[in-house]
């Protein structure tokens, strides 16, 4: 039953190929049918493989299927081989289910677009690459998938490439990603040098048995994490994600909320043996995750673009996932990844629905009171917002609580504190968004108001399905307070996590206190948002008037982009221009042109010998003869 798992990436891959070659000639209905069905088929096979996996004993993990012998250099071997184990199962289920729903939504959202075929080709290509990434059984193939999703991110962000801002955003995403990839590659190289293989099973075994020195483990862990910061948009390489909102909304939902940006978390979870054995690296991961969580949350407070708020929210939530991985609770981090996929994609798609209804308006200050025009969208959006804020009984509560509790249990109080602060801000900015968009006075432009309409069913049905999952998805990972051994999720992932020592435990009482604290914090955030935007709408303005510098700092994203431009980007551009002027033009072009010129020069000199007169020719003839005879005679 489990042997068919290797088909999972290749069905979308085949679909990509067909759409790429024939896409322009196929009718729209067929394209959407094929694209969505391909992803759905992958989902079905994932479910089947998952069921099969539960029936195989733990010792058989991971199930590996080798497809092709690929790289074979000396002692090093890297094959095209896919594997299936609990971690992979979680990722494939998330990617294919959420991906399928987003594909269906895009059929409605992109129905008017002129590059319909290209969109679905690239979406399927992305699905294929992401599945290769999560199903690869060695680091090299995973890196192939890693780059593949980076490429698709570039293609899809710059989907409307005629717009300058979109093209630039695509470039920015790809280039910043590449910087992270440099670190990732260095990590892979060190692993190859020290362990000799990139197969995950081999790595875990070798490192677990103490084959590497502590400093080497730390070094590799940090290098791999650099790659993760690039792909998952953490400090310092997060700057591409807000700009990536130039792409179509389904792209933002799929790639920049649910799947690609979580690849870094998956990678850290997969390489958990390094982070468990190296406390310094794990601390760095947790710290960066926590700082990013709060940093991004503060930037979300002031944004007026509905998608930008959600982008910063994504950065912040991924920070939470890294907190989970950094404190050793990899299962908690993956759990948050899984629930976040549902409610963040729900939020993005709902925002897309709002934009669709308002003919493309993004600015929240020009919205308001939309809940009577868009009831379905409002309901689903609200569910998503409640989920992300960590209100009890929805999925976000369970996953966020799991992370914060593990942080506290492992003695990382500073990280826990930052996480808690981030939770307040999360609740606050999400409900700010809800209140500004759906409640209060209507601030719509007149032409926009004329065309306001609820989105078609093909868009609202996926929303409702995602909302359903946002509610129930958390119940497979119940915390200890509700009963021992109800955390099926972390038990499922246990075989994949390297256990160096037992988990820390807290007393039941402490756990209850922590839970109540996070609930209180969430409700407090919602209440404050209500006060600021419904009861006394003047408060935000007076705050801005009192602390203009604070507002400017937050609104301009702490000027990070400007700092990067000044410190990194412009010097590099200036430097390459100098090299171009002095080296490329003068030396290289000079050499090439110079050799041509000298050939012509010598040719011109030689051509003076050809005067056309017999006498001159005879002269040279005789000279040669004289030299020859002289040589022979003397």
């Amino acid at each position, binding site marked *: 039953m489990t042997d068919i798992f290797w088909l999972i990436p290749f069905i979308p891959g085949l679909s990509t190929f067909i759409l790429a070659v024939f896409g322009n000639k196929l009718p729209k209905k067929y394209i959407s049918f094929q694209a969505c069905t391909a992803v759905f088929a992958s989902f079905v096979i994932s479910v089947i493989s998952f069921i099969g996996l539960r029936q195989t004993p733990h010792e058989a993990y991971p199930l590996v299927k080798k497809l092709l012998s690929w790289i074979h250099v000396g002692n090093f071997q890297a094959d095209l081989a896919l594997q299936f184990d609990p971690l992979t199962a979680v990722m494939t289920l998330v990617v294919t289910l959420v991906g399928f729903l987003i594909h269906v939504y895009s059929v409605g959202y992109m129905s008017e677009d002129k590059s319909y075929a290209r969109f679905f080709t690239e979406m399927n290509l992305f699905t294929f690459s992401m599945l290769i990434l999560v199903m690869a059984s060695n680091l090299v193939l995973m890196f192939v998938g890693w780059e593949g999703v980076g490429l698709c991110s570039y293609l899809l962000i710059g989907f409307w490439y005629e717009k300058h801002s979109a093209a630039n955003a695509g470039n920015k995403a790809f280039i910043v990603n590449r910087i992270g990839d440099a670190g990732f590659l260095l990590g892979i190289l060190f692993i190859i040098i020290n362990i000799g293989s990139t197969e995950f099973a081999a790595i875990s075994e070798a490192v677990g048995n103490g084959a590497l020195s502590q400093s080497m483990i730390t070094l590799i862990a940090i290098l791999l994490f650099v790659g993760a910061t690039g792909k998952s948009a953490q400090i310092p390489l997060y700057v591409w994600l807000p700009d990536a909102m130039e792409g179509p909304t389904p792209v933002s939902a799929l790639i920049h909320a649910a799947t690609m940006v979580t690849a870094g978390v998956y990678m850290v979870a997969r390489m958990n043996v390094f982070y468990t054995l190296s406390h310094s690296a794990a601390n760095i991961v947790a710290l960066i995750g926590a700082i990013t969580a709060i940093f991004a949350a503060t930037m979300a407070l002031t944004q007026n673009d509905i998608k930008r708020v959600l982008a910063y929210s994504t950065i912040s939530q991924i920070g939470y996932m890294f907190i989970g991985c950094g404190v050793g609770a990899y299962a908690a981090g993956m759990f948050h990844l899984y629930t976040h996929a549902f409610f963040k994609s729900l939020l993005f798609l709902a925002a897309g629905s709002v934009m669709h209804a308002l003919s493309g308006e993004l600015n929240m200050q020009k919205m308001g009171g939309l809940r009577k025009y868009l009831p379905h969208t409002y309901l689903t959006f609200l569910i998503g917002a409640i989920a992300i804020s960590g209100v009890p009984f929805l999925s976000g509560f369970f996953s966020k609580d799991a992370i914060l509790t593990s942080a506290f249990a492992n003695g990382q109080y500073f990280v826990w504190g930052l996480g808690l602060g981030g939770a307040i801000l999360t609740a606050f900015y999400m409900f700010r968004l809800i209140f500004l968009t759906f409640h209060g006075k209507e601030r719509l432009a007149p032409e926009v108001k004329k065309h306001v309409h609820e989105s078609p069913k093909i868009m609202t049905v996926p929303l409702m399905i995602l909302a359903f999952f946002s509610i129930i998805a958390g119940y497979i990972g119940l915390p200890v307070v509700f009963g021992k051994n109800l955390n099926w999720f972390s038990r499922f992932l246990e075989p994949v996590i390297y256990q160096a020592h037992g988990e820390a435990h807290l007393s039941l009482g402490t756990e209850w206190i922590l839970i109540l604290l996070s609930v209180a914090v969430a409700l407090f955030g919602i209440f404050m948002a209500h006060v600021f935007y419904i009861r006394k709408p003047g408060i935000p303005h007076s705050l801005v008037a009192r602390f203009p510098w604070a507002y400017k700092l937050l609104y301009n994203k702490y000027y990070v982009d400007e700092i990067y431009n000044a410190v990194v980007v412009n010097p590099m551009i200036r430097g390459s221009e100098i090299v171009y002027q002095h080296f490329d033009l003068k030396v290289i072009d000079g050499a090439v042109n110079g050799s041509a010129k000298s050939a012509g020069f010598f040719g011109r000199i030689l051509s003076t010998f050809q005067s056309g007169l017999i006498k001159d020719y005879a*002269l040279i003839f005789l000279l040669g003869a*004289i030299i020859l005879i002289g040589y*022979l005679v003397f």
Partner: protein
Amino acid sequence: MAYFLFFALSIICILSVIFMIFVKDQAYNALFIVLAFACLGGLFALLDAPFIAVVQIIIYAGAIMVLFVFVIMMINLRKEFSPEKKKLTLILSLVIGVVLFIEFLFSVKGAFQQLSSGSTESIGNPTSLGKLLFTKYLYPFEITSVLIIAAMVGAIVLAKKKDKDKE
């Protein structure tokens, strides 16, 4: 006796070539060369090659030079050509000549000692020539006849006056 003949013939030969260089008229040049060839014929005879000597006179000094004279008359240029006046060419050619001559002298260095040996019986009579021509050198003989025909045809075709449209 032989010495006297040799020196007489050779001096006349060389003088006629030198005159050929300095005289401007083409017809005179041709005639001087006829004289030179005649002397050469005499020298051949001195070298026990009577047949070749006669052939030289009949064909070279006779037929070929007559051909030259015909062509000179056909071209019939009243203009005279003064020899090369450019100093560079003069000096260069003189230098080349001298160098070449010195090289040739060196190349015959080894032969200075050797006296002109050889049998006193005449070896150059037509009988012995004919014997060799038709046995050892048969191929060149036959091919040369083809060559002559080819040259004849070629000369006729080339020099024929075209009575078509073009001139």
